[in-house]
C-alpha cells in the first residue's frame, strides 16, 4: 500500500474549532474552549492515520470538524479537492457520500425504531435514487460485506450484540461507496474478544475497497496494529505525527513518550522491566491553556523557554513532525 504514489486525500490546514463560553447576566461571550487549536495534517490515499490522545484532547472534535459535523471556527479541510470547511449547504450534501463516519457507541448511533435494512438503506434513500428492489439488493450486499446474516435485515438494533451493531454502523457508512471514513473510537465500547473481529473487518474492507481511514482511539496497542501513521494530540494540538514504527520505537515528543510508557502491557516480564514515566497532575482546561507550550505544566523535560514560546509543528526527521523545543530548538523554527 505504501508503494503507490502518495497523494493526500485529506489536507487539513490550521484547523481551529472553538466552542464559545457565554457568561454573566447578559450571556456575553467571555471566552472559548479551544477544543482544536491550529491543527494541520495530511491523510494519504489508502492509508490509515491513527489519532491518539487522552479524553478531552480534541481528537473526536477533529474527526467531527473534518466531516463538517461541526462548522470549524477557522482553517481548511480539503477532502478530495473540495474545501469541506467552506462548502455551501447543497454542495456539502453532494459531497457527503465520499466521506462517512463510524461512531463509538453503536447503541446510541442506531435508531432503535428502524430495522437494520432501513438503517443501512437510509443513505441510499437520501443520495442514490435507486429503485426499491435494487436498493434492497444493495443492502443485502452490504450486509454480506460486513458479515451480517441477510435473514436479519428486518430485525431491530436491540436484537443484536455490541459487535454486530458496530457492523451495522459500518455497513451504513459503506452504503454510498465513500473514499474516506472517520472511525471515532469504533471499538472502545466492545469487549476484548469482539474488538479483534471489528478491526479485522475494517482492515479487510480497506484492502478490498481502497478506503482511507482516520482511526481515532485511545487504545495505543490497537492503533499500532491498524495505523500506518499516528498523530498524538494533547490539549487541542498535535504534539507529534510520525510513521507508526518510528513513533512506537522512538517517540520524539515527551508527551508521546510518557503516553506510550503509561500503557500497561499484557506480559509480566516486560511489565517488570519497564520504566514508567508518571506524569504529574491533570490536563489543563482547554478554555485556559498554559502560555507557551501547552504541555509545559506536566512535561518532565520542561525548559524555561517552554513557558514563553509556543513550539511549532516542524519536520524533525524525514516524515516525522514534532512540536517541541527540545527536538527542534527554537532558532531553527520560525517563532510563533
Amino acid at each position: 500500500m505504501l508503494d503507490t504514489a502518495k497523494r493526500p486525500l485529506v489536507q487539513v490546514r490550521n484547523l481551529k474549532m472553538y466552542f464559545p463560553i457565554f457568561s454573566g447576566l447578559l450571556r456575553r461571550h467571555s471566552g472559548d474552549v479551544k477544543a482544536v487549536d491550529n491543527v494541520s495534517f495530511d491523510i494519504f490515499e489508502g492509508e490509515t492515520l491513527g489519532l491518539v490522545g487522552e479524553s478531552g484532547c480534541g481528537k473526536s472534535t477533529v474527526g467531527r470538524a473534518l466531516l463538517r459535523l461541526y462548522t470549524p471556527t477557522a482553517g481548511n479541510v480539503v477532502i478530495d479537492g473540495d474545501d469541506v470547511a467552506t462548502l455551501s449547504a447543497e454542495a456539502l450534501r453532494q459531497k457527503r457520500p465520499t466521506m462517512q463516519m463510524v461512531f463509538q457507541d453503536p447503541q446510541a448511533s442506531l435508531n432503535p425504531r428502524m430495522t437494520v435494512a432501513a438503517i443501512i438503506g437510509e443513505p441510499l434513500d437520501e443520495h442514490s435514487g435507486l429503485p426499491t428492489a435494487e436498493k434492497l439488493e444493495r443492502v443485502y450486499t452490504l450486509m454480506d460485506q460486513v458479515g451480517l446474516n441477510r435473514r436479519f435485515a428486518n430485525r431491530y438494533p436491540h436484537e443484536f450484540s455490541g459487535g454486530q451493531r458496530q457492523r451495522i454502523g459500518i455497513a451504513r457508512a459503506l452504503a454510498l461507496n465513500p473514499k474516506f471514513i472517520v472511525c471515532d473510537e469504533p471499538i472502545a465500547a466492545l469487549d476484548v474478544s469482539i474488538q479483534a473481529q471489528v478491526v479485522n473487518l475494517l482492515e479487510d474492507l480497506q484492502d478490498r475497497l481502497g478506503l482511507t481511514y482516520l482511526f481515532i482511539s485511545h487504545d495505543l496497542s490497537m492503533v499500532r496494529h491498524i495505523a500506518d501513521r499516528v498523530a498524538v494530540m494533547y490539549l487541542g494540538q498535535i504534539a507529534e505525527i510520525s510513521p507508526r514504527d518510528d513513533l512506537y520505537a522512538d517517540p520524539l515528543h515527551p508527551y508521546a513518550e510518557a503516553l506510550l510508557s503509561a500503557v500497561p502491557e499484557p506480559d509480566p516480564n516486560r511489565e517488570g522491566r519497564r520504566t514508567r514515566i508518571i506524569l504529574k497532575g491533570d490536563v489543563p482546561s482547554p478554555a485556559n491553556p498554559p502560555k507557551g507550550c501547552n504541555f509545559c505544566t506536566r512535561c518532565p523535560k520542561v525548559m524555561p523557554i517552554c513557558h514563553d514560546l509556543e513550539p511549532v509543528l516542524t519536520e524533525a526527521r524525514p516524515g516525522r513532525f514534532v512540536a517541541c523545543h527540545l527536538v527542534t530548538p527554537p532558532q531553527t523554527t520560525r517563532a510563533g
Partner: protein
Amino acid sequence: MPVLEVRGLKTVFQTRGGEVHAVNDVSFHLRPGELLGVVGESGSGKSVTMMSLIGLLPSPPAQVRAGEVLLGGVDILKASPEELRKVRGARIGFVFQDPMTSLNPVFTVGAQIMEPLRVHMGLTKAQAEARAVELLELVGIPDARKRLKTYPHQFSGGMRQRVMIAIALACDPEVLIADEPTTALDVTIQAQILELVKELRQKLGMAIVWITHDLGVIAGIADRVMVMYGGQIVEQAPVWELFHKPQHPYTRALLRTIPKLGGQREARLQVIEGQPPILAGAPTACPFRARCAHAFARCEAENPLRRPVDGAALGHGHDVACHWTAPAQESADA
C-alpha cells in the same frame, strides 16, 4: 489462613425471560497481603461475584442461592443486615469503576470520607477530620485540609478515584475490592493510580481483589489471576504462569487476540469467533464450547470441573476447568 474464602457461590437473577445464572459455583480464597486479579469480559460474572459477597445486589431480582463467604472464618452470607453493615466499608472496602456516580454530588468530599470513620469507628468530628486529612495525603491529594471542603465536581476523574480509594481505606479494611477502578480513566492517569496502589500495598499490606478486563493492568500488579467466563472460573494461576503457560483455550485465545505495544507487529489479529454465552438455565456443558477451537463431544455433555495443572492443591497453584489438555512446551515462548 486466607482473609477471605468463598466456596461454591451461586447467584441467580430472576428475570421476565427466565433465570439468568450469573455466577455458577465460584470458589476462591484471598491470602493476606495478596493482590488477586479477576479478568473477564462484560457479563462473565466478575462484578456480580464480588457484589454477591457482601450483599450489594438488589434482591429480587438477584438471589444468592448457595455458597459460603468466610471472612476471618465467619460466614457473612448468613449475617443479618445489621451485621453485614458492620462489615461493609469497615472490614471490606470498595472502589467502583466510575468515581463520579459513586460519590454523592451534594456532600463535600470531607463529609464522605468522614462518614465511615464516624459510623464504623465511632470517632469524634475532630478526630475524623484529622484522619480524613491523613487519608487524602496518603492517596496523594495536595492541599488536603482545604480539599476536604470541596465537592466531587471540583475534582478531576483521577482525583475523584483517589478520593474513592481514601474512603475505601478509611477504616483500615482487611480486604479491598476494586471493581474496574481505572477503566474510566486515561492511561496517564491510570498509571498514576496503579503506582499509588502499589505504594499503598507496601505501606498498608491489605489484601486486594482487582477486577478488570485489561490484561495489561493485571500483568503489572497482580500476584495471582482468576479468569472468568460465563459465570465460572475457567482458569486460576500465579500471574507469570497465566501469561506464559495459559491452559484454557479461552485464556490462550484472549492473550493472542490483543495487539502488542512492542515486539513483532502482528499482520492480522487472531479472533475469537462468536459471542459470549447467554446464561439461561443451570449450566450443563462447558460455557466456552461454542467458541472453542478444541471442543469435542465431552464438552457438550459435561461442564468441566476445575483440575490442578501443576500438582498443587486446587486453588493454590495453577488450575483450569477444561476437558482438553494444552500441549506441554509450545506455550513457553507465547
